[in-house]
């Protein structure tokens, strides 16, 4: 049904999406906890910064990433030390989609943590659990549905990411060509329309699946 090239595109997209979730989860948990539980100066500024990719045109996000993490970017020399190339590489696609999807992830994680009664954390402390154990066994455990929703949204957003990815990681067949950039490329070719059907069906199916799964976990979040 699918050509070898389409399978490659699909596998790359899934790999980028998985890595994107893995990359954003830890920062989202830390920032989500900070925003949900702590008061500090410039909290609004941090909140705004985290949500910036939601309103910024993805192409701009991609260009800013180039300025920061491109080979001649601000952190280029640092990345060179570790022999790590992000721009025009699939790892760059991960970073681009992680940044674009981060507000969605953060929002869900934060809501998940806010839904946990802080008094339960105090109970855990009086029962002998230290702050870290309390966070892991009570806060994070009860916020799990929020983490799941956030991961699914970030996963789905990553599968659809186009603007930032194509700007920062480009559209190199076999390396950074994900489903959206493949569809875009094929549509620009004379016989393209017949080739995109399979990818579009896959896109719709994956997105629907992720939405249904996140709706289901959101319902569980509300009911607990």
């Amino acid at each position, binding site marked *: 049904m699918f050509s070898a090239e389409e399978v490659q595109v699909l596998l790359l997209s899934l790999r980028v999406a998985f890595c994107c979730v893995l990359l954003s989860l830890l920062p989202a948990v830390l920032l989500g906890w900070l925003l949900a539980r702590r008061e500090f100066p410039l909290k609004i500024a941090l909140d705004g910064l985290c949500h910036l990719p939601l309103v910024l045109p993805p192409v701009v996000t991609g260009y800013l990433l180039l300025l920061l993490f491109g080979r001649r970017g601000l952190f280029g020399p640092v990345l060179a030390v570790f022999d790590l190339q992000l721009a025009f590489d699939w790892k760059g696609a991960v970073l681009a989609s992680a940044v674009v999807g981060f507000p969605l992830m953060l929002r869900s994680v934060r809501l998940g943590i806010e839904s946990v009664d802080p*008094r339960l954390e105090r*109970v855990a*402390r*009086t*029962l002998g659990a230290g702050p870290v154990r309390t966070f892991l066994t*009570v806060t994070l*455990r009860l916020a799990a549905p929020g983490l799941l929703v956030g991961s699914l949204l970030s996963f789905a957003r990553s599968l659809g990411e186009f603007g930032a990815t194509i700007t920062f990681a480009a559209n190199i067949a076999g390396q950074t060509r994900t489903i959206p950039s493949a569809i875009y490329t094929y549509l620009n070719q004379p016989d393209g329309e017949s080739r995109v059907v399979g990818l579009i069906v896959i896109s719709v199916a994956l997105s629907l699946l992720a939405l249904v799964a996140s709706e289901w976990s959101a319902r569980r979040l509300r009911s607990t």
Partner: protein
Amino acid sequence: MLRLRAQRQLGPFALDIDIECRHAVTAIYGPSGAGKTSLLNVVAGLVQPDAGEISLDGQTLFSSAQHIDLPPEHRRIGYVFQDDLLFPHLSTKENLCYGRNLLPAAARRFALDQIVDLLEIGPLLKRRPGHLSGGERQRVALGRALLTSPRLLLMDEPLTSLDQGLKNRIIPYLCHVRDALQIPILYVSHSVAEILELTSQVVVLDRGQVIAHGDFFTIAAHPQVLPLVEEHGFENVLDVEIAATDAERGVCEVLCHGQQLKIPYCDQPVGSRLFIGIRADDIVLARQRPTGLSVRNALQGTISAIADVGGKQLIYVDVGRRLAAKTTSEAIEEMQLGIGDPIYCLVKTHSIRLGPQLNRPEKR
């Protein structure tokens, strides 16, 4: 023994406490917003005092001078909150074992079975908190705290969210804990009746300050305490005037709103005024003034209200002052009690608790 000296600003007023608790149960009593919960939080280490010193059995838990502030998880103090706050994602058994599993085996004073038996929660072990009743949840919360083998147990109005019937069923468990497990308890409540079931040692708090500390019947007549006691539902407090004393027979005759009453002997001159307490449980109701009974006291009055609280019936009788008597709905039906009916309240002399001389100024 708990030694507590702490100051902390609490919005409109400052918590300023200096007490020593050396009794099995010390009750913290006061109106809502008096700082009772803050006091417990300070002891538990959940709230840091601005200044002061807290020590338990000789170990310093907090000292602003020595910069000591033991975190709550190292204080070995059990805390039962007003709401049970069971972990919703854990079964009853997992809730019970949460703290216990964090203790080294050598530090565990009680076996799981011992606490489960004491609180009769065996059939609940596999259930999640969502499937427990209010009374069951509060018992599990108590068990969870006990299983951490605390050196001190803090209880913050643990019965407030329960109806009267459940309260009556939980209190015996608290007495068990007090007597069988030998854990000192700091018990916050705004119900004198509830406190007196457990202890007479009371610390009265108002606006963050300790206004009285000691035996309830000694401090209840304190001019600042009496209004609080009356206001917060300790129904059966009577002020009486001594009419005659009989040291030989061990009784005093007193006048209570124009009626005669015999109370245990107290060494007070005739004409002095006293404060006595009668528990709602200790009052027997009768249609006629009985004959052939050993009970000496029969206060005449009229029924002013009947309240159903969780299966138990409270009958309020106006004897010049409102008395609350506990009875069963069966008795009410059989006696066909109704509001406005004349009734006698029978009280055994020796179930009357004596207070001190009443220092309240005479009405002008």
